[in-house]
């Protein structure tokens, strides 16, 4: 990979250890993905914030890199383990180490969004701009729906891009690679966010390519239903390495894989491991304003019969509070948790719960695999029908 004189100086440590470490990561990725050069990026979104997932070694790495490192571009941050404004029932050690991680990112100059839906709370760059998004669902959504350009970055590659303002020019950053080589032909009538999530999970698992086509899905989902497009992107991001989808016509002459009743049933059987649960969780990815409105309108004044936790960004929570949404939903039994996400939060562990109820395939996957918790996976509408009372 060809580096400019400035980049070479950064790599050799002339401009500090953090910049050198960041360039080392980017050069390793560039060589592995056959990049010929680095290109500037205008926005980075970093994952690897929750102490539950990065542990002590991650914390030490961040402390070290934040000693002399500073981000060069606007940089947002994924959720951490709990809500900053609450007093979580967690060990002192966890809380202290989580806050040390937050402090390291603060020192680096990262905006403390603690959100996996930065595209709903940040000012977006112009379409066609190169960015570097680590959160898998956000990367897929940005490429496929927002017309931004990113690879499916890792926590470390996005951090390195934030510090250098650069990213290797490879894979989805190259125009020719943004055309699908294979497509999923949907044969089903997709009715709700869970249907889209299941299709996404199947797609990611089946297509090990950078970009996939999806046929027979209404292009309206991009404009009318935030929950559907987010579920689709999160499903793809969870189960595969694919970083982009394109909604296509059936007549595109590329290899195809059918997605019908049997495929949907098998996907659901893999992720749905319980009929019932002790707590309902919404928000993986976190909910935005539109989804909170939808939750309220579906409830129609009914109350949850089980504890219900809703995960959303702090910014969304504040906006919803002003609009009176929070109070209404709290009356329905909803507990709000900002700054965190259903996935891998220490607030929902095997110690507290054997099973949960959710409409998120992403939450379902990580609850099952990482937290060893059974999941009743059903749509928002079904959850409200089964677990609310007037």
């Amino acid at each position, binding site marked *: 990979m060809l580096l400019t004189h400035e980049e070479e100086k950064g790599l050799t440590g002339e401009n500090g250890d953090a910049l050198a470490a960041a360039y080392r990561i980017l050069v390793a990725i560039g060589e592995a993905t056959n990049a010929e050069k680095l290109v500037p990026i205008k926005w980075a979104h970093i994952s690897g914030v929750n102490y539950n997932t*990065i542990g002590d070694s*991650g914390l030490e790495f961040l402390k070290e890199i934040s000693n002399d490192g500073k981000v060069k571009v606007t940089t947002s941050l994924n959720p951490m383990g709990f809500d900053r404004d609450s007093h979580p029932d967690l060990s002192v050690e966890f809380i202290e180490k989580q806050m040390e991680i937050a402090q390291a990112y603060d020192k680096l100059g990262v905006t403390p969004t603690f959100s996996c839906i930065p595209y709903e709370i940040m000012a977006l760059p112009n379409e066609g701009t190169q960015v570097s998004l680590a959160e898998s669902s956000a990367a897929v959504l940005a490429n496929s729906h927002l017309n931004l350009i990113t690879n499916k970055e890792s*926590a470390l590659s996005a951090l390195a891009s934030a510090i250098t303002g650069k990213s290797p020019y490879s894979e989805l950053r190259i125009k020719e690679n943004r055309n699908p080589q294979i497509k999923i032909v949907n044969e089903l009538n997709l009715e709700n966010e869970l249907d889209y999530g299941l299709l996404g999970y199947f797609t990611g698992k089946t297509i090990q390519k950078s970009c996939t086509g999806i046929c027979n899905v209404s292009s309206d989902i991009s404009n009318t239903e935030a929950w559907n497009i987010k579920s689709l992107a999160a499903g793809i991001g969870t189960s*595969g390495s694919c970083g982009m989808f394109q909604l296509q016509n059936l007549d595109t002459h590329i290899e195809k894989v059918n997605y019908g009743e049997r495929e949907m049933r098998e996907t659901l059987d893999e992720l749905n491991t319980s009929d019932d649960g002790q707590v309902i969780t919404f928000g993986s990815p976190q909910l935005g304003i539109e989804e909170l409105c939808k939750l309220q309108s579906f409830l129609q004044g009914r109350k949850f019969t089980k504890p219900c936790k809703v995960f959303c960004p702090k910014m969304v929570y504040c906006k919803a509070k002003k609009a009176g949404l929070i109070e209404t939903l709290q009356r329905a039994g909803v507990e709000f948790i900002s700054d965190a996400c259903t996935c891998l939060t220490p607030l929902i562990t095997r110690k507290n719960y054997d099973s949960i109820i959710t409409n998120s395939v992403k939450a379902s996957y990580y609850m099952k695999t990482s937290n060893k918790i059974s999941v009743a996976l059903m749509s928002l509408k079904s959850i409200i029908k089964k677990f609310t009372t007037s």
Partner: protein
Amino acid sequence: MGKARGKILLLNKPLNFLGMVNTNTGEITNIDDGTRIYHLKNTILVFPNSIGSSVGAYTIFSLRSNNVNPRGMICTNKVDITTASGCAISNIPLAFINNENYKRFIENTRISFDSNEIEILLDTEREIISID
């Protein structure tokens, strides 16, 4: 870049490091039907690529910090960014073997998914993958 020697661990399915790997023990769980547990420590991991969470890069780093990491990795489908960046900060040699060479390697060496006792050498600088 680097050289590593270890017992081969051959996986035919992609790996979600965050969801499938225990960073304290180096065990891979939740793969296949979940009944079989694989150990990463001191192996040369041969697998298609990583999938899912971007935080998997930190998982690789944690494996290294806990001394339960594979000594080297070889991707058989593509080298993804999560694996590349995780290996980069963990100083784990990483290589790619294309489909044709992979098939030839499997045929010539008669490695199977059960033959984890076979030791191989990975030398990324000289682009060598060989059986001892």
